[in-house]
Each structure stands twice: as C-alpha cells, then as structure tokens.
C-alpha cells in the first residue's frame, strides 16, 4: 500500500536516489562535480603547502596512477617483497622542472591517489549496500578468471606506458593535456580489438555447446557452469522473505557513512584536511559510478561489441564538464606564481608509449570487463572475478612503474614534455585558453559522434544478420 506524508516521501526519495539505477547523464554530472571538487581541493592544498602547512597533506586531482604503485607496494610486501622497490614521495614539480616541497611519505596510503582508489572502493561499497546490491559472487566458470588475468596483465602494462588509467584520462582531458587525446584514441583502438576478440571467443563458445533447440527451445540453457553466490544466500522459497544479509545492508551502508564522516573529521583535525576532502570526492565518484553503472570499459567497447554508445556519450558529457570546471583553478594557477603547479595538475609527458599503452589497456579492459576505477566499484559489489583482474593489474603495474623513471624509457616512449611539461600543455601550444578549450571540446564531440556512428553500424549488422 502506498504511504503518504513525510515517511512516504522519504521512502520514495530513497528508492529513486539509492535503489534505482541513475540515468547516465546524472551519474556523469555527479562524477564531474567530484572531479572538479578534487581539482579544487588539490589547488587549495597546494596553497596551504606553499603557506607552510603540513607538507604531507597534498591532495591531487582524481587519478589512480601512483596509487597503483603504492597499493601494489603493499601487496608486494605481503607477497614477500616481490618486484622493484618503490619510493612514495610527496612533491610538486614546478613548470621549470624544479621539485618543491619534496617529502618522503611516512605511509604509502598518504599518497593521495592511493586514497582516491580507496575512496572509489568505499563509495561503491556504500552505494551497493544502500541499494541492497552487495553479494559475494564467485564465478565457477574458469574462462572468466582467464579473461580477468589476461585483462589484468594487459592493463597493468598499459597503465605504466600511458601513465594512468581511464579515470586519469578524464582529469587529463579536463586539464587539456596532449596525453589525454592519445589515451582516448589508443583506448578506442584497443577496445575495438578487444571487442572483436570477445565476439570470436563467444562464437566459439556458442558453437561448442549444445544449445540447439531440442523441442523446447533453449530451455533450460544451463550449460554454463553457474556462479556461486556465497553471501548472502537467497532462500529457495520467496515466501521466506529477504534474508538478513540483504535486509540490513542499507543500515550497514548508513553506518559506514557515519564512520567515514567521523574519521575524515578526525583526519582533518590532525592536519590532513585536504586528503580528507580528497577522499570524500573520490567516495562521491565511486558512489556515482556504482549508481549509474558508469564503466569506462563499457563506454569504449560497446560501440564495437553490442552497438551502444550511450555510455560513451555520457563520458563525453563528463569530459566537457571537467574542461569547463577546471578552468577557474587553472586560470588562478596561471596568474599566481605560487600556485603555478595548479595550472598543470595532471599533465603528463606524451609520446608513442602513451598510444601503445592505451591500446594495450583498451584490449585489457575489454577482456576484463572493467578498468581500474570500474574494477574498484565492482569489487565493492562483491564480484570476485573483478578482484582477480584488479589485483593482477595493481601488481603488474607496481612492478613496472619504476621503469618509467629510467632515461631510456622517457626518451623512447615519452619524449614530449619530459623536460618541460608545458610542451604537452594545449594552452601553451596554442598560446590561448579559449582556443584550447574550443579545440578540446571539439575533439570530444567529434569522438562521441564517431563512436555513435560506429555503434549504429554495429547494431545494424546485429539486426540484419
């Protein structure tokens, strides 16, 4: 029976905001808000560091690259110091190449992008719990693990070569770096090949199993090895009501939000307000991604696989909002020498390595079904297959990341911007902010139209076959 009054209104609002899937545009807007917030917090933390506050409290715009190294370092320590040593540091590299406020981190988790990764994971977990969607799902089909492993390895190598992940590409596009355009092109090419590989694998699979009509259609098509949901277990008889493991999930989600708010307040009081706010921004990102099922792997792959470009168009909206949202902070950095680094946050060197890495990453995320940030919120939903891909990706990239500091690597794979980062910064190249903004938005719109065209072609082929 429908309830009226405040209680009824609250229930209806809760259902719409926390239980039902968000439209993609709404998730993109919330992701953009959190990305802009993270950029703003990073700029603020830079001003605080320059003013002599806690040098470890250095937030960064949303990204995961160095976080992969730090979290990978922790996993490697658990595994017995496998891989190369890593050197977590806090510091700002000024446009002239000098490193300011350099400090060795006392704890790898203080590296801001490690916090970002944990924040996305946390946001995804809270969103899943509030929607009663958390369940530990263990695929029994070995091929899923093979896809996760191969995808994780390809993404791990790709992340090192392209200096980041698709989430970094969103920040980098907003920051107007050349690296981002290379990333988008490379991930599109990689996703194309990844999609073709999946189609081929599924065709082989379909022809291998006896799913031909046996007089009763395909019923029941239980020829795949099923998953095992190890928690919570659904009752055989629906009359038994929801098991407690599902019924109490929203309460646990609310409790986690309270714990987070309390912890972040404490963290702020002991001198880390910027990292606390940065974590909150990442949590919002994870929340929005889970609610809208926002998935970079889906966005780049589906125009070639199932013929859908709606997710890519939502991502394009996100990219455009970030370009516009970052602008005030970048202009502030351009006029204030103390905040010069804020103008070029998230700009990384470019070169053939970024393109190659993005292609590998694109293939990997198509196979795994998720990139880094996608994997984080899906891990939080309890998808064990995704855990395998994520841990593989983190370990592989953390082993290889130190390589990118080598001179040979920079010279061969990322020569542009290695000496002066402004060489790969569009406003510096064009000599104008308005032209750079127009160019970046133009490229995004062109790419979204192209992906829409590809998706139409793919879907037409599907319907006609």
């Amino acid at each position, binding site marked *: 029976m429908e309830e009226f009054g405040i209680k009824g209104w609250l229930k209806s609002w809760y259902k719409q905001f926390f239980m039902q*899937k968000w439209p*993609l545009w709404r998730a993109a807007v919330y992701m953009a808000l959190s990305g802009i917030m993270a950029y703003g917090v990073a700029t603020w933390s830079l001003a605080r560091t320059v003013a002599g506050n806690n040098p470890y409290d250095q937030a960064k715009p949303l990204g995961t690259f160095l976080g992969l190294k730090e979290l990978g370092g922790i996993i490697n320590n658990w595994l017995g110091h496998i891989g190369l040593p890593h050197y977590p540091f806090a510091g700002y590299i000024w446009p002239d190449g000098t490193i300011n406020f350099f400090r060795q981190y006392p704890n790898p988790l203080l590296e801001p992008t490690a916090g970002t990764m944990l924040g996305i994971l946390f946001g995804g977990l809270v969103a*899943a719990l509030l929607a*009663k*969607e*958390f*369940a530990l*799902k*263990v*695929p*029994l*089909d070995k091929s*899923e693990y093979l896809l996760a492993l191969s995808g994780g390895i390809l993404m791990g190598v790709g992340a090192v070569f392209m200096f980041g992940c698709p989430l970094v590409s969103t920040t980098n596009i907003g920051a107007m770096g050349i690296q981002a355009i290379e990333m988008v092109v490379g991930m599109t090419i990689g996703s194309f090949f990844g*999609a073709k590989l*999946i*189609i081929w694998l*599924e065709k082989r699979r*379909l022809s291998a199993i006896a*799913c031909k009509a046996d007089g009763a*259609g*395909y*019923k*029941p*098509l*239980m020829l*795949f*090895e*099923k*998953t095992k*949901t190890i928690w*919570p277990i*659904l009752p055989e008889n*629906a009359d038994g009501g*929801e*098991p407690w493991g*599902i019924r109490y999930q929203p309460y646990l989600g609310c409790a986690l939000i309270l714990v987070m708010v309390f912890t972040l307040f404490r963290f702020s009081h002991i001198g880390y307000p910027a990292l606390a706010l940065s974590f909150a921004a990442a949590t919002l990102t994870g929340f929005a991604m*889970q609610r*809208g*099922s926002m*998935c970079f*792997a*889906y966005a780049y*792959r*589906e125009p070639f*696989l*199932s*013929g*859908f470009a*709606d997710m890519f168009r939502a991502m394009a909206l996100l990219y455009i909002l970030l370009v516009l949202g970052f602008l005030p902070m970048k202009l502030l950095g351009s006029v204030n020498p103390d905040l010069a680094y804020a103008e070029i946050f998230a700009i990384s060197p470019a070169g053939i390595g970024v393109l190659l890495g993005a292609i590998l990453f694109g293939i990997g995320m*198509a196979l795994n*079904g*998720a990139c880094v940030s996608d994997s984080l919120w*899906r891990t939080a*939903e309890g*998808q064990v*297959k*995704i855990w395998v891909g994520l841990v593989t990706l983190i370990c592989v990239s953390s082993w290889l990341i130190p390589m990118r500091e080598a001179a040979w690597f920079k010279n061969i794979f990322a020569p542009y911007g290695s000496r002066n980062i402004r060489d790969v910064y569009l406003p510096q190249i064009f000599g104008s902010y308005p032209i750079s903004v127009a160019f970046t938005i133009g490229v995004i719109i062109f790419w979204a139209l192209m992906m829409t065209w590809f998706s139409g072609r793919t*879907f037409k082929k*599907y*319907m006609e076959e």
Partner: protein
Amino acid sequence: MGTDIKIDNELDVKGFVCPRPMVMTMNILKKMESGQTLKLIANDSSTKHSIPALCERAGYKLIEETDEGGEVTFIIQK
C-alpha cells in the same frame, strides 16, 4: 513474478560479468523466433542498464524486470 507468461527460452548468466551477459543475451535473442519469450537471470548490476537499453533499441518487449538481492530476472519477448 507473473505466472501466466509462457517462457520459451531460459538463460542463466549469473556469475558472468559485463560484457558477456549482454553478448550471450544478444546471441540467444538473435536465434529466437519473433514472438518467443526469454527468461534471463543475471547478477551483474550492469545488466540493469544494458538489457533494457537493448530491448528499447532492438524493439524487443521487456515484459518484466524483477530484482531480488542483486539477482535480476528479465522476461523479454522478441
């Protein structure tokens, strides 16, 4: 769930993660005759977005969608 809907085909993709539930569903629907129904069971949250989108675009009728503890059941008529 309605009990008067005749189910012609059933596909259980629980445990499969995006993109495979979508690909498998598309492959099965392609082989089905027009008017036949498919009962699809999935537990990957991405299907809540992708399957209704597929139905809308391809002109399939999404007769029913139920969610129980993250296990989503779709009934689709081709």
